[in-house]
């Protein structure tokens, strides 16, 4: 059977009465409005919590390479950090729809007023706070390792996780003996995230399965933004983006089950993506920074 867009448009006009009534119903409108309001409040809160967790997760990779994870004395430091992060993430999970306090609403209102730059600054500070506490030497080495690891980590794998407030320390896997090679595998990304209080569920996609279309890029960077930054799938402007410490992007992934709203933050040490599927937040972490992130997204 053949159809054209005009016929399709006409057929939509004959949709069931209940859908038309629903669309015109004022109560439905306020309900959706309210839901969206809550959704963006939660989104902002979660992004902040996850930024800290991601920074800490990046530390795991550096720490593991230096042999300070697990059995060594410095393991205590990481365990402490894990607890702190678990608290942050617990707070995020416990912020259920019904439990959003007025205080959170106020925070959200404040956030609304904040400029994008101010938000960036705040998250940057949180990011650096999470990394603080490590010996300076380790920080330098972490950067080196992060750069060196990108090649060995080019499995193109990104993990997804949800925070789980019911987790206890006993639920976390034993991270003793993690090697650099182990970290290069998706399973250990999952493990590392678990160590920091995140309950990873599965690997969401692997490099090579993903290809971006021009339309995706428009959605990713916004019509005008794309032009002003001269971003194109082949464009060298991608490298310009990598020089920024992080960039807030709304993007779409070409996957059937990809979320409607997707927030991506790119740090020099990795990529953090969050989304809300209507019930809970999901978290994606990739230890790739800068251009590598785009290589993966482009499926290279």
């Amino acid at each position: 059977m053949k159809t054209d867009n005009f016929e399709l448009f006409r057929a939509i006009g004959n949709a069931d009465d209940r859908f038309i009534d629903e669309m015109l119903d004022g109560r439905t409108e306020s309900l959706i409005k309210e839901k969206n309001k809550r959704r963006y409040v939660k989104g902002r809160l979660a992004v902040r919590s996850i930024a800290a967790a991601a920074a800490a997760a990046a530390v795991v990779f550096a720490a593991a390479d230096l042999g300070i994870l697990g059995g060594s004395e410095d393991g205590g430091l990481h365990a402490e950090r894990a607890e702190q992060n678990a608290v942050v993430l617990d707070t995020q999970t416990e912020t259920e729809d019904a439990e959003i306090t007025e205080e959170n609403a106020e925070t959200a209102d404040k956030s609304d007023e904040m400029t994008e730059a101010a938000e960036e600054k705040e998250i940057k500070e949180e990011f650096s706070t999470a990394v603080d506490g490590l010996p300076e030497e380790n920080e330098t080495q972490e950067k080196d390792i992060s750069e060196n690891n990108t090649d060995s980590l080019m499995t193109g794998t990104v993990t997804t996780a949800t925070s789980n407030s019911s987790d206890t320390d006993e639920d976390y896997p034993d991270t003793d003996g993690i090697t650099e090679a182990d970290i290069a595998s998706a399973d250990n990304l999952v493990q590392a995230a678990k160590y920091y209080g995140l309950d990873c569920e599965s690997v969401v996609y692997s490099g090579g399965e993903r290809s971006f279309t021009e339309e995706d890029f428009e959605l990713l960077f916004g019509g005008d933004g794309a032009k002003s930054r001269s971003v194109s799938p082949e464009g060298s402007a991608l490298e310009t983006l990598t020089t920024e410490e992080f960039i807030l992007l709304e993007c779409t992934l070409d996957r059937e089950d990809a979320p409607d709203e997707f927030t991506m933050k790119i740090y020099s040490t990795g990529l953090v993506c969050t989304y809300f599927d209507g019930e809970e937040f999901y978290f994606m972490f990739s230890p790739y920074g800068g251009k590598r992130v785009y290589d993966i997204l482009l499926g290279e």
Partner: protein
Amino acid sequence: MEITTSGVPVVLEDEEIIKLYFERAQSAISETDKKYGAFCKSISIRLVGDDRDAEECVNDTYLKLWVTIPPQRPNSLCAFIGKIVRNLSLDCLRRKNAAKRRENDALPFEELSECIPDNSSQNEWEERRRAEISDCINGFLSSLPQDQRVYFMRRYWYGEPLADIAERYGIPANNLGVIMHRLRKKLKKCLEKSGFRGGQ
């Protein structure tokens, strides 16, 4: 026109308006216009893009209401009226486009309609096909979460601009763009699954 003490015109309930149609009272039309005039006009003008044509479509809608009620008794008068005005506006648009094509290109394809052996059965076939597409769309709409369904209807039934929908529901316009993009892809899959394919 009946006016309340506060100066606001009294608007009848749908049931009362339908009752007026059944009683064949002339006021049925004016009451419909009072309650749904602006609604009809907003749908029509988005489709035909011309104030005078829209006005004509709205008047034709009232005439059609007069003819169809009774015997029909709509469950939702609003949806019933909306569908009529939308269909009439689309007919008007199609006529306008066809006239424009005739003027510009002088394509004689309209004349060929005379060659079609049994026009009534073709209409029947088209009606059936249209009903099948509508079934498919209803299935698709049922499968969506409420908010997405409403966004879709606002855009493709009501013809509302994306920016207005985004503002109405407090959602970033960019996010809404992404949602609509996904919904279109989903609908395409749904239609393909039901055996429809593109083309005239």
